[in-house]
């Protein structure tokens, strides 16, 4: 936050100069890996140690919010869902999930806000607010170590397919698609950084560059600004479809929330 997002720009420029135009080929399941494996040993140690991982501060705050009564209904999350350790186990691993009321998938943040509006009679939390990040980190933390299963529901297929189209679509002034970096050139160097495969295994995660927790849509905005495209609006159907595609693409990898990334 304190630094201007120079790195993202430099990265994209380097890729364009490198002129790597390849075919968008899918990564074989056996080769799928988390961005964790490409981090420095120090950053990996920070993520592993719960007393050194700053994302755990958000999880702690989320625990308080989970038990706090909110809205005119005067109900807390715990009043309906009970102990999150049991009721929220594996939930983040299958989100974004299909919502029958909405007739489309909702992501974890969207689900929390739906609960707030319909069950708690409370105002929705702003997407990138401290409270929302803390609460979603707390819920997702309960799935830590579990394999991602998102996108198994057949009703999600058209949305997943739309997410895949967005993933493979060239966009922005630099005319790049997500796939050109994260499918075709992962593992290669982009300026000083290694291009990850782009699996959203640890969101919301603590990015050292942000000096705070941040959501997957925030990370997507980062990339989109990098290719000089107009970022999708927070919580828009496009973002959720793209999140759904990315999560189903990461199927089988373990949830790491709260992850640490440089």
């Amino acid at each position: 936050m304190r630094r201007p997002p120079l790195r993202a720009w430099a990265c994209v420029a380097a890729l364009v100069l490198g002129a790597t135009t390849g075919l968008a080929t899918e990564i074989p399941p056996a080769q799928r890996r988390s961005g964790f494996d490409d981090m420095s040993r120090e950053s990996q140690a920070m993520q592993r140690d719960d007393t050194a991982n700053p994302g755990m501060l958000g999880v702690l705050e989320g625990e308080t919010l989970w038990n706090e009564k909110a809205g005119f209904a005067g109900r807390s999350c715990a009043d309906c869902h009970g102990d999150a350790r049991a009721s929220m186990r594996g939930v983040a691993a299958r989100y974004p999930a299909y919502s029958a009321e909405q007739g489309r998938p909702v992501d974890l943040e969207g689900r929390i806000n739906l609960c707030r509006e319909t069950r708690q009679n409370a105002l929705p939390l702003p997407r990138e607010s401290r409270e929302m990040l803390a609460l979603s980190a707390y819920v997702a933390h309960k799935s830590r170590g579990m394999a991602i299963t998102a996108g198994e529901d057949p009703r999600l297929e058209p949305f997943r397919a739309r997410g895949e189209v967005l993933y493979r679509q060239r966009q922005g002034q630099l005319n790049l698609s997500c796939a050109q970096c994260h499918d075709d050139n992962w593992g290669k160097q982009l300026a000083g950084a290694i291009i990850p495969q782009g699996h959203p295994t640890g969101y919301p995660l603590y990015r050292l560059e942000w000096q705070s927790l941040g959501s997957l849509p925030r990370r997507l905005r980062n990339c989109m600004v990098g290719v000089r495209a107009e970022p999708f609006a927070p919580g828009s159907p496009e973002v959720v479809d793209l999140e759904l595609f990315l999560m189903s693409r990461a199927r089988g990898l373990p949830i790491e929330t709260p992850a640490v990334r440089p």
Partner: protein
Amino acid sequence: MGRALINVPAKAKRGEIIEIKALVSHPMETGYRTGPDGTLVPRDIIQRFVCTYNGEEVFSADLFPAIAANPFIAFTTVATESGTITFRWIDDQGRGQIETAKITVE
């Protein structure tokens, strides 16, 4: 202030060197950044961190604006006797946060 995560070994041998880690949530706003309206965001940093072991100071640090948000401080001390280790952070607003941890020395 916010929340803190403390890592102190629950048990140690007398004379053993133990590592203590303390992480606290704080924005560590430098005072040099401008907000959306173009005015400077007022400085808000932790100025001082003090750790006492049974009332005796074993470690302290002065913090400055270049230190990142949610400062993480790790240091070592010698386990002398069973008791309480107290951590204190004081910020620009004069707000303090105190956390304690118990240690058993055999």
